[in-house]
């Protein structure tokens, strides 16, 4: 797997956990406003933390779709679950939340799971997918020659 593809997987992890954190922070600020009127709802969307969170979650979705275009679902999901660990560490060190022994055990299990799947193959060699990639590669090299 190329460096660029590792970057995409890292994007899935970072965009999702930072986006979720920003959205949570923004919504906690907005929660003080009673959301009875549409104008106030729009003001909630105007909160910079909420805007940042939405932008990052859109970036997450783009990275997730990109990863699924060349990797198996049963590879991408466990591999990117390291984001849960990142969220717990953000909670511990940035938000100073208490991390219980049970949660540390959870972090340990997820990290072990990510290690297991990351050492294995990225994609099941499906005939139609291989053929597709081959024709794409040929088209690319033909385009580069001309």
């Amino acid at each position, binding site marked *: 797997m190329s460096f*660029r*593809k590792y970057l995409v997987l890292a994007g899935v992890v970072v965009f999702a956990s930072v986006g979720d954190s920003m959205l949570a922070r923004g919504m906690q600020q907005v929660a003080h406003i009673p959301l009875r009127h549409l104008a106030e709802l729009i003001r909630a969307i105007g909160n910079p933390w909420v805007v940042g969170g939405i932008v990052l979650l859109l970036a997450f979705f783009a990275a*997730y*779709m*990109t990863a*699924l*275009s*060349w990797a*198996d*679902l*049963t*590879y*991408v*999901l*466990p591999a990117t*679950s390291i984001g*849960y660990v990142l969220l*717990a560490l953000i909670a511990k060190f940035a938000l100073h939340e208490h991390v219980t022994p*049970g*949660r540390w*055990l*959870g*972090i*340990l*299990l*997820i*990290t*072990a*799971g*990510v290690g*297991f*799947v990351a*050492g*294995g*193959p990225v994609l*099941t060699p*499906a005939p139609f*997918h291989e053929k*597709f*990639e081959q024709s*794409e*590669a040929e*088209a*690319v090299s033909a*385009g580069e020659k001309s």
Partner: protein
Amino acid sequence: MRHAYTWGAIVIIVLVSTAGDVLLARAMKTVGDVGMLYRRTGLWTVVARILTNPFFLLGLTAMAVAFFGLLFALSWGDVSLVAPACASLTFVGNAFAAKLFLHEHVDRRRWTAVALVACGVALLAA
């Protein structure tokens, strides 16, 4: 009785969210390697190809339904049960669904990873 409703909601959310993930994965396998397509045809062609894929639109709808279903369930269900159960069971559901519908090769290594992550997520979210 309330417990039965909560578990009913969890099962529905897990099924819909699994369907969403499988449909999105199917859509992206049909579209093909986005990086390669981007270099060949440019960004807008790639975006158009994804947005016009029926599997993608179905998958996106399923994900949206699952998301709002989760918000709804969290508003009346026990948060410490609904959140970890949905998150961890979706990992297990996806492994079965990917094997069944996407014909992915889920070997012992991947089953172990899925089991470890599902237990870990349940512990973290609880």
